[in-house]
């Protein structure tokens, strides 16, 4: 046995594949569409969610026995909003450059349904350590999809990865552009992210028939 028991390890590995928050639970679609036009943004958003979901799940789990069920959603919302504001302020004070890069993501985290979804579905009924692992697992599962979508959108839409040109220069006509290749501006539009997510779901379900519901 390693660092984690088998059951605990599953909390991390499950959301990466067979219980992925985006492709299976269909949570967090909105941000997956909005910010995946470039790979860097996808990665940064993944890390930001990892941070907030990990801590938020623990906080909610610690409070699970004292939260009145009638107002639990509001309590969850307050916890996540407070966390996000604190993170934002600390970044602005001590890592200003980073906070400029993150700008909109910080605000977007609050509205990310994965956070509320995991609070409601897992942290309210489980111990802090398990909740922490669940948070990390789901955030990683979310990040993986974001990175895949970001990879294809940036590569096909702008011909770059992390802002670095990999296919040549479209204006100087070097690299693949010499042979008549052109960037597909459509890839930069949010609907294309939906199509890529759809393709991922298709691949995933054709490989694992258990996921197909009928």
């Amino acid at each position: 046995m390693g660092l984690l028991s088998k059951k605990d390890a599953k909390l991390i590995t499950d959301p990466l594949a067979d219980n992925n928050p985006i492709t299976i639970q269909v949570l967090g679609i909105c941000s997956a569409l909005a910010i995946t036009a470039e790979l860097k943004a996808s990665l940064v958003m993944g890390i930001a969610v990892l941070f907030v979901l990990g801590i938020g799940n623990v906080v909610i789990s610690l409070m699970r026995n004292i939260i009145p069920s009638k107002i639990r959603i509001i309590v969850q919302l307050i916890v996540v909003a407070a966390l996000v504001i604190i993170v934002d302020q600390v970044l602005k004070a001590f890592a200003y450059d980073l906070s400029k890069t993150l700008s909109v993501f910080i605000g977007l985290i609050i509205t990310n349904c994965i956070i509320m979804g995991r609070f409601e579905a897992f942290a309210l009924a489980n111990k802090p350590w398990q909740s922490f692992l669940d948070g990390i697992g789901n955030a990683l599962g979310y990040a993986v999809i974001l990175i895949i979508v970001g990879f294809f959108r940036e590569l096909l839409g702008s011909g770059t990865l992390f802002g670095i040109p990999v296919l040549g220069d479209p204006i100087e006509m070097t690299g693949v552009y010499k042979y008549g290749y052109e960037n597909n501006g459509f890839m930069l539009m949010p609907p294309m992210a939906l199509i890529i997510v759809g393709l991922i779901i298709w691949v995933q379900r054709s490989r694992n028939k258990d996921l197909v519901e009928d």
Partner: protein
Amino acid sequence: MAVNTDKNSYTIIFAIAMVVVVGSVLAFTASSLKPNIEENKRMERQQNILYALGVNENEGTGDITFISTDKVAEAFTTNISEQIVLEVKDGKLINEMTREAFMKSKEQGAGKEPYLIDIKKEQTKAKNGESRFLPLFKGTQDGKTVYVTAVRGKGLWDAIWGYVALDKDMVVQGAFFDHAGETPGLGANIKQRYFMDDFNGEHLLNEAGVFKGIKVAKGNNDPVNNDKTDFEVDALAGATITGDGVSAMIKKDLKLYLPYFKNLK
């Protein structure tokens, strides 16, 4: 635990306690971090103004790199020879102040440096029919006097703003744009060098001296921006509204400086 969490009284007490706790934690964080945040914002303004003037640490053609924060205060005093505040109303220049005069004038400046003028507040003043202040920073670039102007407008989601360096004929010598919350990968690219650098050398006035502005245009058949007198730069794909915001901001705010530049001739 023996607490009945379903009781109304418990729910209310919990809600009140939660609000008090979260409220005070947030208030404490905000007020204890405020000096640091203000300082960071102040340095950022200096970095932005210097960037438009061409004082930066850019390497190659990729990302933008500002002058580092430990050097910015000194660079600001050496490179900006003069900070001027213009007071305009209805397109007319009614007053021109030096930095010292502006900082002395109690009800207006109250000891505030001209580069800290809140453009948003000034725009509201102009909207209410009052006179407004325009900051202007004088510096030199390649031995030529350059004037850095400030602009502010709105993009798709939130505010966009920038600094534009002009020579005496209102030809752009450098531009810097920033935004509060444009879409990453689309509108947020106004902060990329390939967009900002396109403005260099663009004319704002036509041959007759009429103010034309610079339009962020789609399909202007000039992607590498060879034509500097077409009053157009190439737009960003998927960022139409942000681009229109940049055009509008340049057209509206730079026009305010027109009387000053006319006086220079």
